[in-house]
């Protein structure tokens, strides 16, 4: 069974860091609080995790889930680690929303 943040679960596009971040953030939001992130929320994460580099909008180093390495094992390990970094911050944000503390009441 793939992990909660396996690439299979949210189908990122390695040609678009911004688009992949958006897809991943929405996946985490929908999985935990059953809604997509708002534009303001997307902007919060994009401003922190994406930077202008070589004229392109690319992941900052610690969030680059598409990083390339010669060693395939090293590459896979780093991609997983940086993807977890993104998830950590997004879930940190979600944990500050009162929605998460109300879900069982609603159910």
């Amino acid at each position: 069974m793939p992990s909660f943040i396996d690439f299979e679960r949210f189908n990122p596009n390695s040609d678009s860091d911004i688009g992949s971040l958006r897809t991943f953030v929405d996946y985490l939001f929908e999985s935990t609080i059953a809604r997509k992130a708002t534009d303001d929320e997307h902007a919060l994460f994009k401003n922190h995790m994406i930077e202008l580099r070589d004229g392109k909008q690319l992941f900052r180093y610690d969030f680059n889930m598409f990083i390339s390495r010669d060693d395939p094992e090293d590459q896979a390990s780093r991609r997983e680690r940086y993807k977890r970094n993104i998830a950590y911050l997004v879930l940190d944000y979600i944990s500050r929303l009162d929605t998460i503390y109300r879900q069982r009441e609603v159910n």
Partner: protein
Amino acid sequence: MKRRDFIKLSLAAGSAILLPTFSYSATLDVNAINFSSATYNDNAAQTIIIFMYGGASQLSGNITNLAEIDQHSQNSHADYFRGTTPTANGCWQEAGGVHMEELIAAGDMTLYRTCYSQEREDAGNKAHGVCTEQNQKGTYDADGGGIVANIAAILQAKGVVNANTLMPFVTMEGESTFYLEGNTALPGYLKPVGINENFDNPYDRDISRWLHCTQAENDNNNCTDAASGYIPKLSQDMDTLTQTYNQAGKVKDAFARRGELSNFIKEIANSTTPDLGENAYPNNSFSEKIEAAIKLLDYNSDTKIITLGTGGLGGWDDHNDGRDYVGRMENLFQSLKSAMAHIKAIEKDSTINIMVFGEFGRNVNLNSANGWDHGNLQNLYILGGKGYFTHKGVVGETIVDNAGSNRIWLKPKSGTYWFEPLSIASTLYSIYGIENPNVLTGGNYPPVNIV
């Protein structure tokens, strides 16, 4: 669940949490309250309420009638228990009586033996839920608010607590009827803060600074140094944005004060207890609770009332195997003796008080399971608070009422002093400056001459 637990769990599976919500009741008219700010300020009272859930037997503090009880009881106390030795004042030596006597001799405690309810006697009410509610509300009015919530509302209305008051009410037992709000919802800063004996900090935010800091922050300041107190911009922005989405209420209130409370709780956790010598706390989690409560009161004069149960000792609904009660009472009063020594060591015995009571006492027939069924007379133990309490030693006399069919009760001796349990609420109201507590408690006043 803590936030960091949520994050960890979400990475594995996702999760949800229930925070129970307060319901609202009616009938608090603060305009009818006569409030003395002079009394409030002079007393500078701080209270630890220990509620003995389950209804503790009164026998630990009163075996003056034991010989007569055993003439009628199904089983003999003298035969079943490993010692029913009376102390000088008729307390049960093996069940905390020695410690009670020391507290009384030092002028640190009053033992009231006749907290009795004629109202419940007439209504035939000895049910846990109803009696707990009544005692924690201080009224027989089912629509009344909790004692602590009423005090909070009154102190706010009279202008002696405000948004700058830090953690005025603290629960170490979770939510209870003590905090049931009146007809006007209390603002967040008056709602109880829940902590435990280890000061596990519910407001602590586990920031992974390397991830939260921007490159510029890392380059230009001490963003990654947790001790610096610097809060990364991303974390600040998260708080700002989430609070625009969060609905008004308990969670939003708690998050709004998170940073302030987090640092404060860390400071309290780092404070130390003086060396209490031979009165050192016994090794049990209840002692840890009461020790933590006193540290908190010592550190924070803003905290007025802390409520706790006797978790760590066990419950008091001793329908069977009454021997367990003896050890529990011994541990409770050993802990209370240590607590008084602690309070004296920090020179707060004039301001900090401890009140120990439950929903009711017990029938004194030792039944076929060697326990006691529900009763209608309990002890009230009041310790400390010597700046405003005049301790009386032992108050109240009891007689045995043998109603047959294993219904054997202790009742106040005819012509002697007794009071309804709602008088406990009146005592609390009085020490916090409320001059007419009887309007909140259906006409019941504090126990005679205590305040």
